Each structure stands twice: as structure tokens, then as C-alpha cells.
């Protein structure tokens, strides 16, 4: 696959002015940074907290012994920050976050979730990268990453399959739900593609219900086990399961072989929730633009909402949405940890990702590109990008 590096002068110029990289001598790093960076005292006559004067307890997630720094030089904020990527604009209070090595026991997961996961591969002129990162909120309170993703190929190698899932934070088994939902969606789609010569003939509505039932079955087992009796969950209604085990799930398929014009077919399957599917168009190299194919949230709503209707709750009939991916376009499927700050693409996050995703990235570079720090971007993050 031949890739010409696009010229992104305008975006790069804008972004350089807005990105702040913390220097080693910046005052916000090291133990106690959050308290040091606190606001000025407030006068309220009520005995309220004076953040400069009161020796407050360490925030959740503070490593044991962190206050006993001894004679070691403070570790720079650029190193200690849980994400550590580019600072976009003024990330306000999020710049003072510190990493947590403390993971509260969550759900029934035997495997400890890694804070970061990434992978990348190339196939037939496409480059595919995926990454998932524990967000700043969960880094703050000691919970694991509750997003999950799958990327891979159909059995016949004709389709790239990408799945992202976002466990609903309030559910005790959120991380398990995201893993189960993405895995079941992956399995079902891969099987359906294997059993059909033409994806247009696949009964996507039936597939959507199959995924939901499998997620529900898994949830019943885990929620039952959570109560100490695995069999107790077998009769639970979906609503009861979803209180503890719930996740969004979205799938995108990209056909490997292009048509005569270089276009590749794309299928989007929004099984549940508020993920965002977007296309970065670089046909005008100096003005790359985002097209939001499906926004996770209504951009025109006067009042926005974080509420979702996750799996395993019943969903509207699943409908496949078909599109095309043209040469020099990048298809991105992201959970709301990236979709919300990306918004309509005209944001700092949009400019940052347009700059970083201008050319295909290796797995670790892709992970780094998703580790930006931006005000309002504290959720877990997952992204899959496909470069055509």
C-alpha cells in the first residue's frame, strides 16, 4: 500500500499553539500535585476547606508511601500523569492527575485488566490499529479500564472486523460486560460472514438479537455468581442483569478488496449505545476534515445526556448501515471517551487526531495518539482506525 504523507500545515500550526507539553520543572507534577495546584482559599465563613492550608488526606489511588519522597527528585508530571500524552489546550484539573497503582476489586474478573492495550496489523492495502486506555476517572478511583475492543479478519480474509464496547460504569461487572459484548459480537459477525457469500443477505436483525441473548446468558451467570449462587441468575430478567452487567457495543466491517475506483465497502452495526463512527478525509491534504457518520450523542440537543440503553437490554431491530471508504480516508470507530471530545470534529481532539492519524501508525504510536489529555476527556477510551 502506498501512502503519501499529507501536509497538515494548518492543523499542525493551530495545534502547536494549543498543545502544552509539561516540562520536567513544571510545578504540577509529583506527589501532592493536586493539592499544590488547588485554587486560592475561599471566604465563606463556614470552616470550608482551605486547600492551601489544610493537610488533607491523600486522594484515592495515591500510592502507599508516596508522601515520603525522601531525597528523590520529584518525578515530572509528564511522566507521572496517568495518560501522559499531549496536553490539548488547558486540560484544567486533569493536568494534575496522578497514576494509581491501586485497583479496587471489581466484579468477578480473574484477569486483572491492563491499563492499556493496543495492536495493529496490515492487510491488503489497509492498515488497522486499535487501542484501549483506562480513563482518568477510573485512574482516580482505582477502577480498571471498562472498555474493550476486538479487531481481526473474517475467516475468508475478505473483511476487517472491528468491535468496540464500553461497560456502563455504574454496573459492578462493567468490564466483564464490555469484554463479553465485544467478544460475542465478534463471534457472531465472523460466523455470519463465514456462512454467507454476500453480506447484504445476512439477517442482521437476527444477529443483533443473537448477540444480545448470548450477552444476557453470560450476564446471568456472572450476576448469579456475584450473589454467591450462579444458578440464581438464570431466571433474571434483562433489566435486573443490566443493573450489574451492561455495555455498549458497535461493530464496523471494512472490505479488504477495493472496487475499480479504489472504494471499499463499509458496514456499520450499532448494536447498542453511544459509540461514534467517523471518517477523516484527507483528500485536501491541507484541510483534513472529519465527517461524523454516526455521533454517539445528538450534537444539536439543547441538553445532552450520558444515558445509554446498553446490552443486554432489548434493542431496536439492528439495521446494517452501508457506506464506502475511499483512498486516503481513515475510518475511526471510538467509544465515547474519544467520541465526546471529538464531538463534530472541529475540536482540539479533532485537530489532534487529524494530525496524528494523517499516516498509519504502529500499535504503540496509535496508543500514544489516544493518550491525549483534554478538559472533559476523563472517560475510558477505545479507538479502532482503518487507513485506506
Amino acid at each position, binding site marked *: 500500500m502506498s501512502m503519501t504523507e499529507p501536509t497538515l500545515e494548518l492543523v499542525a500550526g493551530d495545534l502547536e499553539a494549543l498543545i502544552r507539553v509539561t516540562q520536567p520543572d513544571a510545578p504540577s507534577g509529583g506527589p501532592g500535585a493536586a493539592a499544590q495546584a488547588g485554587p486560592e482559599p475561599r471566604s465563606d465563613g463556614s470552616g470550608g476547606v482551605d486547600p492551601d492550608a489544610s493537610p488533607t488526606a491523600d486522594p484515592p489511588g495515591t500510592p502507599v508511601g508516596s508522601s515520603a519522597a525522601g531525597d528523590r527528585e520529584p518525578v515530572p508530571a509528564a511522566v507521572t500523569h496517568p495518560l501522559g500524552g499531549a496536553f490539548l489546550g488547558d486540560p484544567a484539573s486533569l493536568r494534575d492527575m496522578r497514576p494509581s497503582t491501586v485497583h479496587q476489586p471489581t466484579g468477578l474478573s480473574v484477569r486483572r485488566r491492563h491499563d492499556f492495550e493496543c495492536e495493529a496489523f496490515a492487510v491488503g492495502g489497509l492498515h488497522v490499529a486499535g487501542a484501549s486506555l483506562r480513563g482518568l476517572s477510573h485512574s482516580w*478511583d482505582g477502577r480498571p479500564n471498562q472498555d474493550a475492543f476486538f479487531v481481526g479478519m473474517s475467516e475468508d480474509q475478505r473483511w476487517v472486523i472491528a468491535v468496540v464496547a464500553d461497560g456502563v460504569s455504574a454496573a459492578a461487572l462493567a468490564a466483564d460486560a464490555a469484554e463479553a459484548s465485544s467478544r460475542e459480537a465478534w463471534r457472531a459477525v465472523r460466523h455470519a460472514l463465514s456462512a454467507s457469500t454476500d453480506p447484504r443477505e445476512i439477517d442482521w436483525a437476527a444477529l443483533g438479537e443473537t448477540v444480545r441473548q448470548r450477552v444476557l446468558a453470560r450476564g446471568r451467570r456472572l450476576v448469579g455468581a456475584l450473589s454467591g449462587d450462579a444458578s440464581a441468575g438464570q431466571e433474571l430478567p434483562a433489566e435486573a442483569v443490566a443493573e450489574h452487567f451492561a455495555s455498549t457495543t458497535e461493530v464496523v466491517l471494512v472490505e479488504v478488496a477495493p472496487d475499480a475506483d479504489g472504494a471499499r465497502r463499509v458496514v456499520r452495526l450499532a448494536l447498542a449505545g453511544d459509540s461514534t463512527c467517523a471518517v477523516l478525509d484527507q483528500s485536501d491534504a491541507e484541510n483534513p476534515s472529519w465527517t461524523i457518520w454516526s455521533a454517539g450523542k445528538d450534537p444539536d440537543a439543547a441538553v445532552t445526556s450520558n444515558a445509554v440503553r446498553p446490552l443486554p437490554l432489548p434493542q431496536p431491530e439492528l439495521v446494517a448501515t452501508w457506506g464506502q471508504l475511499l483512498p486516503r480516508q481513515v475510518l475511526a470507530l471510538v467509544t465515547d471517551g474519544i467520541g465526546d471530545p471529538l464531538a463534530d470534529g472541529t475540536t482540539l481532539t479533532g485537530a489532534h487526531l487529524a494530525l496524528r492519524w494523517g499516516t498509519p501508525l504502529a500499535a504503540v504510536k496509535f496508543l500514544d495518539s489516544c493518550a491525549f489529555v483534554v478538559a472533559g476527556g476523563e472517560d475510558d477510551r477505545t479507538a479502532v482506525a482503518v487507513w485506506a
Partner: protein
Amino acid sequence: MSITAPTQVLSPTGGPSEAAGQKIFPVFLVIDTSWSMKGDRLDAAQTMAPALLDVCLEDPTIRDKVRVELIAFNATASVVVPAARASDVRSIPPLHAAGGTAYAGAFTLLRQRTEEVCQELRADGFKVLRPVVFFISDGEPTDSEQDRDQAFTDLTDPGYAFRPNVCMFGVGEAEQESIAAYRSGRGVSVHIPGDAARALAAIVPVITSSVLASVGPNAQGGLVIDTGALDDLDDVYVYD
């Protein structure tokens, strides 16, 4: 671009927006300062806004996300602290008890302020979550029922885009019926008869934990009212 689904081409124009994508949660704390609040009741009420602001300050994941406005009302209503992020509030003027208890004035001011605050946030490029009102009163309203019902209807009209979820807290001489009548949306009404100062102190953690549960690290989406702090009190009536 040739995606065949409904699309909207959005090229960066005028430079990228720093606020876009940030979701702000406006919180309106409305405190009865009628004459009956004088003394330890007012002392207890005085701690509410600082406690809420401190919770926001202590948690960087919500510090920039919450805007707190303090409104006091008796015969009239006024903004004591305009909507601001916790780190921008430099002082909170002391509350003074006087006059009667006119809900209508508070509801009317809330209608005006919810719109002004939300529109201003949107104009600055933020996304706005549905506002919440924590309304605290220790006595029966002294204004006309018709006036306050009309003002409340205007505030919570389904056609009003920024209609808030209203949580009503009644303590002291407040009656259950008049408190419950003005709950709306996903709000609750809480009636705690008996020692009003003690009840007011008990409401503080309900408000702070509800804000955390609604937009903190493990928020599910939408308003969550956490009344767990009232579990140890006798004679607490919660309606949702």
C-alpha cells in the same frame, strides 16, 4: 466523502474549539432564608454550598464539570453566588434570615437563571447536562398557591429545553404535601420532620454524594439521587 448514510461534512473552521465536547452539570442550590431559619438552622444551611464546592474541588474528575449557583429566597429570591466552577468561587456571602416563604419568586428566578446559565454555557461551546435544583425549605410557603403553581409549571414545562430536575427537601415545619408537590423530573422529595438543624446537616451529604453519583467517575448517565446518608435518621420520607 461517499458514505451513503446520512452525513454531515464538518471541516474545522475558525480554529478548533477548546470547550466543545465538554459536558457541564449546572447545580442550583436554593435555600430558604425566611425568618424561621434564624439561628442554628441558618448555620446549618450556611454549610451546604461550601460542602458542595469542596467536594468538587477535591475530585479533579468533576472539578471542571460542575457549575454551582446559590440562590436564597424568602419573600423575594436572589442569586447569592452566580453559577461558577468551584475553583472560581472566592467567597460566599453570609445568608441572612428575614421575611416570609415565597416559593413562586424562587421558581421564577430559577426559570430565568437556568436559561441564562445554560445558554451562556452553550454559547461558550460547552454541552449542557440537564440542570438539577436542590430546594431546601423549613416552612410552609406563604405566597399564593396559584402563583407558585404557575411559576413551577413555567419552570418544569416539558417544552422548556433547560427544565431542571427538581429535588425538594422539607425540614422543620415544612409539610410533606407542599414539598412533594414540587418535585419534578428525576428529582425526589424528602421530608424530614423534627429537629430542623439536624435535618439540614443530614441533607448536606445527600447533595454532595448525589452530584458525585451523577457525574463522578462511576456515573451511569442522568441524575442519581443518593439518599443513603439519611438511612440512620428516623422519620424520613423519601418520594421518587
